[in-house]
């Protein structure tokens, strides 16, 4: 009964200050929905990929070896940490479908247990059957029972689609070539039986060893031992972490972990601030009532609980709503746009972090309310029942400059004193605005940082308009004989094993360029040009950082004859997207390798040389526009997340501004009503209140910029290891977010002004509450 009365009191009090409690609620919703929303994205990726890895018995290492022998298989399987070793065949094959899409062929057999397809429908029953990429089939309108022909070893073979499946290796579509990024219309995969290869090759052939490791085995160590065991026969080796799918899965998880760890913090902080100012005001206003409750004999604890419950209920409700909408909003929008191929996009929720954010939000609401009430409770009922002495007006620093002070109008004096006196409220609005300005500035910075990557790479470093991939069998003389009417630059893109001074052994992309380099312009992080030397290699800044390399360090490079040669790192340059090494062809030749271009970078003089593009040596061409689009599509999802963050930052700004303006108004209703009676015009009073808002907006903006920069730096550093991101806040970012916040301030001012119209002068006549 008694509890009920207090509960009803709590509800009525909250209804009375509904603007404040709605603000707290909205903040709690935002905070929890961002945490659960961003968390559910990486959690979903993690759960889905783990499910697929388990269902397909996904390998840990793939070794490319032509026709692996039993002896070689045994050698690999004897390495400690290796659980299972199998061989298979894989290659890209042309198809007879419209537009000649390419299918990645994988073989399976009855003995094969690793890297099996994750069946959605049907199954592989006969040697003439195949299991087709489910997404590819969907895009192409293919069903089980449909026939499909592929060309391997220049022979066409026809298969009946007996099943549809997903593959762990194609969670992120990867063709395994440097060309255009595949999509499900022009690329897919197909599983066929080993026996079927006899149709093309006469015998069963293999070109890859799949290795499954025991749990806990170190893939890097095993890779080194495989390298030693296989020697010359080894062509290439990829660990799951480095594979296209493993890599993008990991990168996305990391990206969203970063975003979900950095951005929501501000929302929690602001929730705490708003609750703090609301509850302190409410509790102060209810001094007398607290005194009455105490005098009636309510225990300290029940009064504490009563006031704590205000924040707690609001926080709980907010967390519940946030939990309901967060995953749907963020996960629902972003997960399908991840360009990851999962059988379904059902969301997984990270309950651990939800519980954590729930506790955090309850601390920010209930905990803060508890504290606000706690301070008052130690006073005696008698003291509480007495009117609190009115807050003293105090002198402020500015008054020491009598000259200025004397000349100020009273309204400026009032604003100055009022601002200084209500430091708490000022701090709240400034901090709130700082938070949201920081958020908006940071998100804008993130936006141009991410969207700037492709322009930086393909407009500032690489200057070609088309990249032509060659078969690697032609040399420079062949290229010059073709007399292509274009600016042409030959490059060789390969990957090389390097050993760092501290013993770390890694495979890294190596680009070899010629001295004549009109289309590749390497730059340092301050955009100054970097010229390669004849005697050393250049390393990207981020790679140098990860491998702890500095200028002058000697690294060992593995040559194609498997011996090592020592070279000096004598240049470090900046490359935002893919990290690797560069060297000049002269050095490449000097260490005993032959420079044959793997690709031509071309800037056409008008017409494209179609005849040349049809040469046998030309494997594939890709337009820089396509490459830009490909790169953008990888970061697209982060951009959407950034945009959502900007929107949420905007809501945050709005709530904070509204709250502090309303507080600034309601706390002074009596003063303002008095001024009305004295004959002040609406606009003069509005100016009094609204000037304070503008002051806090401006202060908040000033502090918001460094906060935004700090946020951006954290994100830039952790977003993606493959990228070297430099967060820059441009003047236009600052101006746009400044204008945005000012617009909010003005809109809020309109709201408050509307409320002020109803200012009742008769309030001035009432006694002090």
């Amino acid at each position, binding site marked *: 009964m008694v509890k009920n009365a207090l509960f009803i009191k709590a509800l009525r009090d909250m209804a009375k200050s509904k603007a404040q409690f709605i603000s707290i609620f909205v903040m709690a919703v935002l905070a929890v929905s961002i945490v659960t929303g961003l968390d559910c994205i990486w959690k979903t990726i993690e759960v889905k990929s783990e499910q697929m890895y388990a269902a397909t018995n996904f390998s840990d290492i793939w070794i490319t070896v032509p026709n692996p022998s039993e002896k070689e298989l045994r050698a690999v399987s004897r390495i400690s940490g290796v659980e299972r070793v199998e061989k298979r065949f894989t290659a890209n094959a042309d198809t007879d479908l419209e537009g000649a899409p390419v299918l990645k062929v994988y073989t399976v057999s009855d003995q094969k247990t690793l890297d099996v397809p994750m069946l959605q429908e049907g199954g592989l029953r006969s040697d003439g059957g195949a299991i087709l990429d489910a997404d590819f089939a969907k895009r192409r309108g293919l069903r089980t029972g449909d026939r499909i022909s592929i060309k391997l070893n220049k022979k066409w073979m026809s298969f009946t689609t007996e099943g549809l499946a997903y593959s762990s290796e194609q969670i992120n579509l990867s063709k395994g070539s440097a060309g255009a990024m595949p999509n499900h219309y022009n690329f897919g995969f197909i599983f066929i039986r080993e026996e079927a290869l006899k149709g093309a090759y006469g015998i069963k052939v293999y070109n890859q060893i799949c290795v499954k490791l025991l749990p806990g085995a170190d893939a890097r160590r095993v890779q080194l031992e495989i390298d030693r065991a296989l020697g010359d026969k080894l062509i290439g080796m990829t660990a799951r972490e480095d594979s296209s799918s493993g890599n993008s899965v990991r990168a996305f998880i990391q990206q969203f972990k970063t975003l979900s760890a950095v951005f929501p913090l501000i929302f929690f902080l602001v929730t705490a601030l708003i609750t703090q100012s609301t509850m302190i005001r409410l509790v102060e206003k209810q001094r007398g009532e607290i005194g009455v409750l105490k005098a009636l004999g309510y225990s300290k604890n029940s009064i504490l609980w009563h006031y704590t419950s205000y924040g707690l209920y609001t926080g709980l409700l907010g967390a519940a709503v946030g939990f309901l909408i967060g995953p749907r909003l963020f996960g629902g929008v972003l997960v399908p746009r991840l360009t990851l191929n999962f059988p379904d996009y059902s969301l997984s929720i990270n309950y651990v972090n939800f519980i954590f954010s729930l506790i955090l939000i309850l601390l920010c609401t209930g905990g803060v309310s508890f504290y606000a009430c706690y301070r008052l409770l130690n006073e005696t009922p008698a003291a509480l029942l007495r009117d609190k*002495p*009115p*807050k*003293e*007006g*105090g002198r402020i620093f500015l008054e020491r400059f009598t000259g200025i002070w004397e000349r100020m*109008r*009273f*309204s400026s*004096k*009032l604003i100055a*004193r*009022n601002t200084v*006196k209500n430091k708490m409220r000022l701090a709240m609005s400034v901090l709130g605005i700082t938070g949201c300005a920081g958020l908006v500035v940071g998100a804008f910075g993130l936006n141009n940082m991410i969207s700037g990557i492709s322009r930086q790479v393909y407009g500032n470093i690489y200057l070609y308009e088309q990249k032509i991939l060659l078969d690697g069998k032609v040399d420079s003389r062949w290229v010059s004989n073709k007399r292509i009417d274009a600016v042409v630059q030959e490059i060789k893109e390969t990957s090389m094993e390097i050993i760092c001074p501290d013993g770390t052994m890694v495979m890294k992309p190596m680009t070899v360029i010629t001295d004549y380099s009109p289309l590749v312009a390497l730059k340092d992080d301050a955009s100054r040009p970097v010229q390669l030397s004849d005697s050393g290699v250049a390393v990207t800044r981020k790679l140098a950082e990860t491998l702890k390399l500095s200028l002058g360090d000697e690294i060992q490079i593995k040559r194609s004859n498997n011996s090592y040669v020592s070279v000096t790192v004598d240049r470090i340059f900046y490359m935002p997207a893919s990290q690797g090494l560069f060297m000049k062809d002269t050095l490449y030749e000097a260490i005993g390798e032959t420079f044959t271009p793997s690709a031509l970078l071309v800037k056409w003089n008008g017409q494209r040389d179609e005849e040349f593009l049809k040469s046998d040596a030309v494997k594939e061409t890709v337009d820089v526009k396509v490459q830009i689009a490909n790169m953008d599509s990888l970061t697209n999802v982060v951009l959407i997340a950034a945009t959502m963050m900007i929107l949420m930052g905007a809501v945050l700004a709005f709530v904070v501004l509204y709250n502090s303006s309303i507080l600034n108004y309601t706390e002074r209703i*009596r*003063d303002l009503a*008095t*001024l*009305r*009676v*004295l*004959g*002040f*015009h*609406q606009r*003069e009073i509005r100016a009094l209140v609204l000037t304070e808002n503008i002051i806090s907006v401006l202060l908040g903006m000033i502090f918001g910029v460094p906060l935004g920069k700090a946020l951006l730096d954290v994100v830039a550093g952790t977003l993606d290891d493959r990228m070297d991101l430099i967060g820059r806040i441009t003047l236009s970012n600052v101006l746009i977010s400044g204008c945005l916040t000012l617009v909010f301030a003005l809109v809020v001012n309109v709201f408050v002004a509307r409320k002020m119209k109803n200012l009742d*002068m*008769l309030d*001035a*006549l*009432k*006694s*002090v509450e």
Partner: protein
Amino acid sequence: MSFITFRNITREYHVGDSVIKAVDGISFSLEKGTFNVVLGQSGAGKTTVLNLIGGMDSPTGGSIVVDGQEISNLSQQGLTEYRRNKIGFVFQFYNLVPNLTVLENVQLAQEICRCPLDPRDVITKVGLEHRMSNFPSQLSGGEQQRVSIARALAKNPQILLCDEPTGALDSETGSMVLKLIQDVARDLEKTVVIVTHNVIIAELAENVIHMRDGKIREIVRNPSPKSAGDIRW
């Protein structure tokens, strides 16, 4: 010619479906420079009369002419202008701006009107020259009310409206405040209207308007009002 004229004034409030007549068809007129009291119990409609004279409220029927100006049909803007230049208001609870010093509180009023008095002179007139730079919270109730009077006078208004000016003060301080009002009004030739339920204060007035249930019961003319120094309650 009368300075303040109420002609058949009605003020109705709508509360839900019912209509409450706070003031019901009252008429009276007051001369310039007189000292007047509106007397009545709470709910008698005296505060409504004060609000109507003060331009804080408009009647729903009838006409109010102050200094030859019809004010019953003024817009919000017009009423603000009217309050600004013609009315000096003394509140029951002083209503000083806590953030401003005594001098600044007076300057607050002086800054917005056409022909203000010098704030320092006015403060001296109410005897608070030594408190000029104190904040309201550092003053006693009587002192605060004197500041409130100084603030009202600084605007050099034609009418000094006082809402229970002694309501929050003890008898002795109250009579000092009343004496001050009486003296300055006489000196500066202000028309004073005091709203109160205190019968004793009525003894100071030249005209006493007795109100009950929104109607004027009687208007008593008092040819020889007492001096504030002579009354006690």
